[in-house]
């Protein structure tokens, strides 16, 4: 295996260092390093971040291969600086048995770009009626530790209670998609002044907040770990803040798009080509909210009330998006843009420094999801999971920068800071800003 010498990178604490990567490990960290035969990467001006870990990715395979596969989603992840993703369970068939989670994990290993950790469904078939084979998935070769019905809320309070209790027995965490289904029938966008004017059925904040309030109390009652997916309202932040102050074992994530975009984009006015009204690329679950919510989410991420950023990367085919608003699918791709959006919304605003970014995009998601071998600081002896990022770059985002199969990005035409120059998942997956070919990365290359 080739040895790589990364010269003069800036670590998250601001120190400059050379990094020697050999046999999948950071062999040495120091200054003036040299290694005979090593491939040298000039990292002057580049940040070396620990490999990013996404706790919320829709890879779509099996069943949704028209929009994404484990391979293409892994490539998108590597392009965005990720070295591990947690694949959501709402595939077809649903990841509710040991067989499906082992298949997803095996496809991830074969692709080789990132560690793919399958998430298991909480309920059989995501139907919200009976528990899925949680124990079988937890003890399978995939060793599942995160369970979620994401896309659908575990709304039945008794099933939620039982699931929290049962998952606790496997050191797992239940990741809840907090959306009261009865309060959001036919919902199309955030409920408020704009939904009233546009005549789109409202998606009230209380539909999210009431579920979170219920679930933190249930988690407290049964002593289980609860994770809240994609918080989107200022009110949700208040509920989580209260729960943490009370000592409840709850963690929370926010998506990059909820840190940057507001519902106002649905009425038009985004940069071209997304400047028209009712552009379904802004349709997402939970919906884009108001500016007050965006600011509250940023503040909560900065003060630790929200623990992590997770992409909710949700690829969709063109057919599923290029249609009238009400018929369009919910979701946006987000792996390639996560770091630039966090850079813009949290670093450029002074709310987080780069070690804070490493915390919310690497170490904390790895800890919450029990993703072994990831989330470590860059140090001698640690696995070579890292990304080199050019914080001085700025570019207009376009489809050429998307490495996955789908192009439903809400950032097309928008100027975003930063650029992922290289990603190492043991060995390089991205060099010079380009995703390496599968034969250089995948299972065959790894022998």
């Amino acid at each position, binding site marked *: 295996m080739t040895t790589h010498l990364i010269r003069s990178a800036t670590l998250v604490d601001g120190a400059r260092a050379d990094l020697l990567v050999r046999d999948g490990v950071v062999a040495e960290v120091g200054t003036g390093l040299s290694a005979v035969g090593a491939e040298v990467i000039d990292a002057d001006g580049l940040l070396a971040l620990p490999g990013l870990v996404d706790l919320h990715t829709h890879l779509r395979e099996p069943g949704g291969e028209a929009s994404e596969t484990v391979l293409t989603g892994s490539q998108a992840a590597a392009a965005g600086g990720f070295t591990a993703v947690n694949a959501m369970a709402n595939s077809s068939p649903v990841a509710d048995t040991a067989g499906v989670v082992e298949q997803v994990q095996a496809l991830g290993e074969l692709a080789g770009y990132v560690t793919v950790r399958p998430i298991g469904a909480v309920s059989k078939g995501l139907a919200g009626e009976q528990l899925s084979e949680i124990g079988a998935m937890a003890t399978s070769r995939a060793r599942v530790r995160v369970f979620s019905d994401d896309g659908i809320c575990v709304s039945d309070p008794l099933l939620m209670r039982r699931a929290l209790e049962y998952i606790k027995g496997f050191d797992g965490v239940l990741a809840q998609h907090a959306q009261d289904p009865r309060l959001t029938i036919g919902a199309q966008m955030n409920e408020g*002044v704009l939904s*009233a004017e546009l005549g789109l059925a409202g998606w009230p904040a209380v539909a999210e907040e009431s579920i979170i309030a219920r679930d933190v109390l249930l988690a407290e009652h049964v002593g289980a770990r609860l994770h809240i997916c994609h918080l989107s309202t200022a009110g949700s932040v208040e509920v989580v803040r209260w729960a943490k102050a009370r000592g409840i074992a709850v963690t929370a994530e926010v998506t990059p798009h909820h840190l940057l975009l507001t519902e106002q984009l649905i009425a038009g006015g985004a940069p071209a080509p997304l400047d028209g009204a009712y552009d379904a690329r802004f349709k997402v679950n939970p919906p884009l909210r108001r500016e007050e919510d965006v600011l509250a989410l940023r503040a909560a991420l900065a003060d630790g009330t929200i623990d992590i950023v997770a992409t909710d990367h949700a690829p969709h085919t063109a057919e599923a998006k290029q249609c009238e608003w009400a018929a369009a699918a919910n979701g946006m791709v987000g792996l390639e843009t996560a770091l630039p959006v966090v850079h813009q919304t949290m670093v450029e605003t002074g709310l987080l420094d780069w070690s804070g970014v490493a915390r919310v995009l690497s170490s904390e998601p790895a800890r919450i999801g029990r993703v072994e071998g990831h989330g470590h600081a860059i140090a001698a002896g640690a696995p070579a999971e890292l990304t080199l990022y050019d914080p001085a770059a700025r570019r207009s985002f376009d489809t050429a920068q998307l490495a996955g199969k789908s192009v439903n990005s809400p950032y097309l035409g928008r100027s975003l800071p930063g650029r992922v120059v290289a990603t190492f998942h043991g060995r390089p997956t991205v060099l010079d800003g380009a995703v390496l070919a599968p034969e250089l990365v995948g299972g065959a290359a790894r022998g």
Partner: protein
Amino acid sequence: MLAGSGWIDAGVVNAGDGTHEHPTQALLDAFTMRRRLHGAGSRGRDLDGVRVVIVGDIVHSRVARSNLWLLRTLGAEVTFVAPPTLLPSAVGAWPASVRYDLDDALAEQPDVVMMLRIQSERMHEAFFPNPREYSRQWGLSAERWATLPDGALVMHPGPMIRGLEISDEAADSPQSTILEQVANGVAVRMAVLFLSMTGNDGAAPTETEIV
């Protein structure tokens, strides 16, 4: 969306989009009000100070939205009357008064009362208990109609559900403009099509210009 896409250079007429807007309905409603209230002298006159009460399923109504924007532009005052379940939760941000009680609204002796259709699916989604209760609280019954001032107009965009939101007495009264609205709709829409096809300055008018 099509009008702003740059794909076509023809005019685009919004003939009613979902629960958003219905501009030509608003135009014909305003035209009907002007003709009735101002008679032969209606040409060039707006609806300054005219008090319009719109009753019914506001939250799902594109007619209510377009009427609000146009009537306000013409100087009229708009009051929405409905149970809170049939009003947008953010209705307070609209330039309209809101009342839950129809009798209170009628006691203010409005110039125009516009009734909106109640779609049957609303009854199965717990927006109100049942049609009898809706009719009792928010229907324009014969008794309520009798309390209106002589010159007040009774309007409805159709199709009506007689006995639910409007009584025969109100719908068939001399104050009713309902059939006139249908006839005026033909003329107004002909005018819209004529203006959008002939243009005014060589350029195709945009949707907002038509509105």
